[in-house]
């Protein structure tokens, strides 16, 4: 009981010895449980791999998901996002995002498209479309 009272007393001014400028207080790979590489399904995700929320995604309240997983899901919910955009918007290093996305792919929450491999660059029709699109901007 006395613990509760002293606990409440800590809220006083000056107890917040750090502020936003201190930077993140959780080290990046703590969010991934120390994993620096995504699982097999997350393999190597390109920066422009597109991440789409799966239509039949399991409940996001799943206990297996951390807050950062949920952040990524929320970001994908509005529109399809590239890995680079997710990293920037979630303010997480790309390496961390890759691991988290690997988890989400395995759980069936999101699907990821692979970028075009260099050997099979988009056909001429698409390049034409890109050029016309740029002109029209």
């Amino acid at each position, binding site marked *: 009981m006395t613990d509760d009272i002293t606990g409440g007393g800590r809220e006083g001014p000056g107890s917040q010895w750090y502020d936003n400028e201190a930077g993140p207080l959780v080290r990046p790979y703590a969010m991934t449980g120390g994993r620096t590489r995504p699982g*097999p*399904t997350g*393999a*190597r995700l*390109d*920066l*422009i*791999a*597109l991440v*789409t929320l*799966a239509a039949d995604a399991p409940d996001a309240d799943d206990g297996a998901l951390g807050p950062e997983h949920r952040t990524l899901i929320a970001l994908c919910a509005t529109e*399809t996002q*590239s890995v*680079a*955009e997710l*990293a*920037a*918007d979630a303010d997480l*290093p*790309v*390496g961390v995002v890759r691991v988290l996305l690997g988890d989400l*792919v395995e759980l069936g929450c999101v*699907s*990821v*498209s*692979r*970028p*075009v*491999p*260099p050997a099979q*660059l*988009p056909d*001429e029709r*698409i*390049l*034409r*479309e*890109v*050029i016309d*699109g*740029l*002109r029209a*901007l």
Partner: protein
Amino acid sequence: MVSEKSDATDGDTTALALKILVAGGFGVGKTTLVGAVSEIRPLRTEETLSEAGRLVDDTDGVDRKVTTTVAMDFGRITIRSGLSLYLFGTPGQDRFWFLWDELAQGALGAVVLADTRRLADCFPAVDYFEHRHIPFVVAVNCFTGARRHDAPSVLRALDLDPGTPVVLCDARDRDSGKEVLIRLVEYAGRMHTARLLDSVR
């Protein structure tokens, strides 16, 4: 490299993202160019790159695997729903060029920004893309006060392959940036077609 296509669903086959790299020396205007043409405010992200151990100063007994964090600014241009162009520029970290294989993988092409006052700064980028046969254009950022050089003299000074496009541009100007990208995509298309022809010959 493990590649797995099986997890792409039907809907994804229509969505296509293309990657263009913006390279060049320090302070040449890479981020400016990305910002001028991007429809979103340029975002910054950090990529941790590894595998460079061999090239780094030899320190005996130290783990050879070295990782470097490279900051990148990137922007996006949506051509239509399901087709977007992503631009990636590294703010001034040309000495990490040798780490870029992962980033260059699958790139449609690259813009090498050059400043005629410091032309040598873009040599590493030019070398890099030439060696990897990645189509690139050289965009000469015409800073106010910089001596004007015409495109052919830049082409000669950089000893580029004759077909390589050299464009004069203003990295701050959206239309100018668009023109650079158009030239690049046209060139990438030509290179690609030529390669296909070579392969059937």
